[in-house]
């Protein structure tokens, strides 16, 4: 009984904060609303019994990404010397495109047959994730390490001081 109420509350928070992200004039407020959206997504993960993913979401997204974006805004504002107020353009066209994509996706989703209730949890999901990452998905896992290495090198290269 508590589950649909929690989902409805989370859905309202998620959609409201996501709308605020794309509609707020102040870029800094936009990032703070994005933090709320990402935290709400962690709540959705919790409602799907994925505690590990909720923790990763909070650590990487709500912690890491928001910090990086705030840092970028502060640095760019200092470089340009005044506050960044962002304006949006082509609101009507954007709304038409987004609505068309939404209708297209929803027409497929709602026509598909239901999946019935979720099956019982097959043991400890976090343990299962760890075992899968190091057995079946060990190659993508190692490639991920390579990607992070390249991203780190790239970030250092971009951020180097001017010669």
């Amino acid at each position, binding site marked *: 009984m508590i*589950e649909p109420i929690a989902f409805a509350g989370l*859905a309202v928070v998620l959609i409201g904060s996501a*709308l605020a992200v794309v509609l707020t004039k102040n870029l800094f407020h936009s990032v703070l609303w994005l933090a709320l959206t990402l935290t709400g997504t962690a709540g959705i993960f919790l409602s799907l019994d994925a505690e590990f993913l909720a923790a990763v979401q909070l650590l990487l997204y709500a912690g890491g990404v928001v910090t*990086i974006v705030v840092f970028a805004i502060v640095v760019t504002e200092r470089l340009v010397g005044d506050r*960044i107020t962002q304006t949006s353009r082509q609101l009507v066209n954007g709304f038409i495109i987004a609505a068309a994509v939404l209708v297209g996706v929803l027409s497929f989703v709602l026509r598909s047959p239901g999946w019935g209730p979720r099956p019982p949890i097959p043991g400890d999901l976090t343990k299962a*994730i760890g075992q899968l990452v190091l057995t079946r998905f060990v190659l993508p896992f190692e490639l991920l390490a390579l990607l992070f290495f390249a991203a780190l090198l790239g970030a250092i290269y971009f*951020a180097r001081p001017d010669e």
Partner: protein
Amino acid sequence: MPPALPAHVPLHAYLVLAAVLFAIGLFGVVTRRNIIGILLGIELMLNSVNINLVAFARFSGDVAGLVFAVFTISITVAEVALGLALVILIFRVRRTAVADHLDLLRG
């Protein structure tokens, strides 16, 4: 309290929620002029994809979906870090964060 409330949340509810978030993110990407604003829209879209992955993984009982969600989250974080490094670099060189002003390659 309405009596018609279901006992559990169906998969379709998660899919519809993710689709709505995706559309909102797409709206942001199309309408924002600031590069950081566009990146935030992309974040919203990638986030909605993760909701889909986790929901499908949970309802199908296959943990592989959760592993892929971990991968997408990690890759997204690397992408954001690099994207913002590019934004700062563009700021240094061109003194602008508006995507429309970056038309150096216009024919």
